[in-house]
């Protein structure tokens, strides 16, 4: 199954007003398949928006969303039940956890582990080294 991102991105500019109340302004553009960096039109629209708002334009994100074709869930397990998988990171600090709803404690995590360690990082960008734990988790 191919994800139809079309490289169409939503650029969301984030604002905060004097009371620290948040809001945003979204615009769309088509991106190339390369790196997503802050340059060119992203910056020029930021400057144009900041010039016509009295709020603080303090952050932005670029999101690519794909709605997937899906069928009714294959099993009865609610998404409030699942497992949390723990990974050590390269810097040896808190590492990262991966919440997998609807997954059994006895599931074979070989493929997930391989992908996480080869490509993914913790939320600070540190590479993941190894799975160090799994436990059941119920969020209800």
């Amino acid at each position, binding site marked *: 199954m191919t994800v139809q991102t079309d490289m169409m991105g939503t650029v969301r500019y984030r604002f905060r007003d004097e009371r620290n109340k948040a809001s945003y*302004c979204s*615009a769309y553009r088509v991106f190339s398949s390369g790196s997503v960096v802050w340059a060119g039109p992203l*910056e020029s629209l930021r400057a144009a928006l900041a010039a016509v708002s009295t*709020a603080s334009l*303090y952050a932005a994100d670029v999101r690519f969303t794909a709605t997937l074709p899906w069928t009714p869930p294959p099993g009865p397990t609610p998404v409030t039940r699942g497992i949390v998988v723990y990974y050590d990171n390269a810097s040896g600090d808190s590492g990262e956890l*991966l*919440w997998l709803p609807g*997954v059994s404690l006895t599931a074979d995590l070989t493929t997930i582990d391989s992908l996480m360690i080869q490509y993914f*990082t913790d939320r600070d960008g540190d590479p993941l080294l190894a799975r160090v734990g799994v436990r059941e988790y119920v969020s209800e």
Partner: protein
Amino acid sequence: MAMTQLPVCQVSYNIVDERGANAQVQAYLPAATTLSDAATRAAALRTALAALTEGSITSQSITYSFVDPVAPAAGENSRVEQKGVFVFRSASTQLTRIQIPAFPLTLVTVTGSIDEDLPLVNALVTEMVNNGWVASLGSDIVALERSYQIMRTTTRNRRARDDRPD
């Protein structure tokens, strides 16, 4: 550049169960990952997850985030509920709009429309029309259709804190 990229881009999936309840899964890739590679890796993890979960994955998103560490402070009396609305027409005639929070009254005429002759407003319109921005279906924005000010209803979270019951 004013904006600094955060060290990761976030990959997230929405999973629904047979009751219709939703849950989200988040994982992270280095921010330098190209969009093409991020899509490939997100798809691989999604396939592996789909093979294990008893829920169904309904959507996937990849988000690159940026912050401005030296963003100017918000102006006095700025209110995000005061919006400037710009409605643009695309080459396919689709209408698309942007809503700008804390839009100042100094850019609005007495009728509530936005003064499109003002240089700051004109610069924004020129940016949207001439710099590759598109409508939600991907068609190029070609013209400003109309613009006006609105006042969004103040939500509970935006109400003054001293106006809320304990």
